[in-house]
């Protein structure tokens, strides 16, 4: 209905769109959907990825955390998104540990109400990692921000640009080696 071609459509827009049947089925209101526990997520991931996921642990209430190498980030995220129902990318943070960078993904499952904290180290001279924007549209600007502030490059990102700083900025201000006035 958006994009009505003319003025005559004005008032006809007032009919509220009803959620389709497929829409209503998805999501966690439907009581038939079972919630995964932390242990089940842990087990399924351990089965699927084995040694590729290290430090796999329950780190809090309704929270699972793991580490992985940057080659496996996209595969792990894809599995989390498509098989385990982590459908909301809450936060992508970039941390500069001076020796290396770390990219931290906080993923949230609106179906199971679980949080998954995925950490991946990136070398200091070559911070490139696969983009997860194809999986979650909401990761788009998180990745742009990580690029803007830390200089991470996300391979496969549709439009990696500076969101906060002007496009001609040639430094990454949140890196620990950045000093004012440089």
């Amino acid at each position, binding site marked *: 209905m958006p994009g009505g071609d003319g*003025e005559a459509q004005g008032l006809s827009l007032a009919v509220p769109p009803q959620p389709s049947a497929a829409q209503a089925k998805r999501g966690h209101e439907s009581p038939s959907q079972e919630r995964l526990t932390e242990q089940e997520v842990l087990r399924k991931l351990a089965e699927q990825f084995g040694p590729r996921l290290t430090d796999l642990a329950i780190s809090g209430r309704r929270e699972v955390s793991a580490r992985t190498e940057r080659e496996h980030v996209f595969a792990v995220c894809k599995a989390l998104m498509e098989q385990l129902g982590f459908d909301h990318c809450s936060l992508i943070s970039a941390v500069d540990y001076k020796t290396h960078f770390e990219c931290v993904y906080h993923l949230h499952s609106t179906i199971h109400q679980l949080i998954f904290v995925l950490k991946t180290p990136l070398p200091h001279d070559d911070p490139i990692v696969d983009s997860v924007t194809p999986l979650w549209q909401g990761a788009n600007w998180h990745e742009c921000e990580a690029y803007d502030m830390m200089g991470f490059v996300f391979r496969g990102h549709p439009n990696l640009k500076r969101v906060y700083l002007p496009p001609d900025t040639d430094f990454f201000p949140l890196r620990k080696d950045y000093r004012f006035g440089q």
Partner: protein
Amino acid sequence: MALFGIDTGWSSLYDFSEGVAKWIIGILSWIVGGLGDNLPWVFGDFLHWSDGIIRSDLHLALVAITVESVVLLLIATANLLTFIWIERKLLARMMDRRGPMYVGALGYLQQIADGLKLFLKEYIVPEKADRLGFDAAPVVLSAAAFFIIGVVPIAPGLGLTYQGSYASATVLLAFAAFAVPPFAVLIAGWSANNKYTLIGGMRAAALMMSYEIPMLLAVASVVVLAGGFDFVTIVEAQQASIWFAAPLFIGFVVFLICIVAELERIPFDLPEAEAELVEGWTTEYSGMRFGMIMAIDYLRGYIGCLLATLLFLGGWDGPAILPDWGWTLLKAYFLWVVFVWMRASLPRVRTDQILHIGWKRLLPLAMLNLLVAVVLVSLGWV
């Protein structure tokens, strides 16, 4: 006639201004004539000219009309200030505020203070604007508004007349002049070379398309009932029978809605929708040009209320506790209060929605109303 409640002894404003004109010219010729003996080489021509005026009836009429215009303009300005004051004060109370408070009694003179402030502001023309259109638009706008003041009488003697008689088709004249501003808005919007003003101008044109026809149809029904194109005739027809708002109630409502649209007031202030278009077509105006545009907006508000009063609410018809002009103004003020009330209560409609309202709702209603008028006349009304 009673001018402002005082019996002046003149039958009309024309007589009054003729007297004033003769008096002014008399004084002028006396001064110039006194000087003329000493300085004939400077004032000789003028002496001759003023001498000619006194002799020629047409010249006298011209000066008389000028004086008359000034009087009408003063009346209109006083009302304009009161209209702005009513809007500010009433709007404030409806919003739980106080409105202007300190300048003058109850803040009545705040408008003059604001006008002074605008006079002191710099007048900025955008560099790439079309200078001619940009400068001409406010002039066209105000000229059209001032023109109507002369045509619309607020009392039998208080209108622009020539030797005591009115022009015959004042309703047509008034509405022709009333429809001019959207063109000025379009010119202003285009010439400012700004996208917001352009969209604002376009919207003014679109708006005009939607309300002008229902409004004129509503007016046509009044003309049909009254049997004349002249405000005095129409008011006299209402005095003879009943206010036209009663038989033509649909037309009255349609006319009010259209007047709100014509005046570009909320809920139909699309050309200057400040939420999306900053200030619409007036975005680039500054200084006193902007002040003038704002003042003309309210002047048009005054005229719009007068038109509705004369056409539908019986004009100066009313018990003799008030003078004629008092009744007209009282009704106009009442309508203005309703408009302010609407402004305080309603959001703004969208462009496509006003077209929808204009064409699908108001036009059929106006046609129906015209039908009612025709039926009434053929059944022997009046």
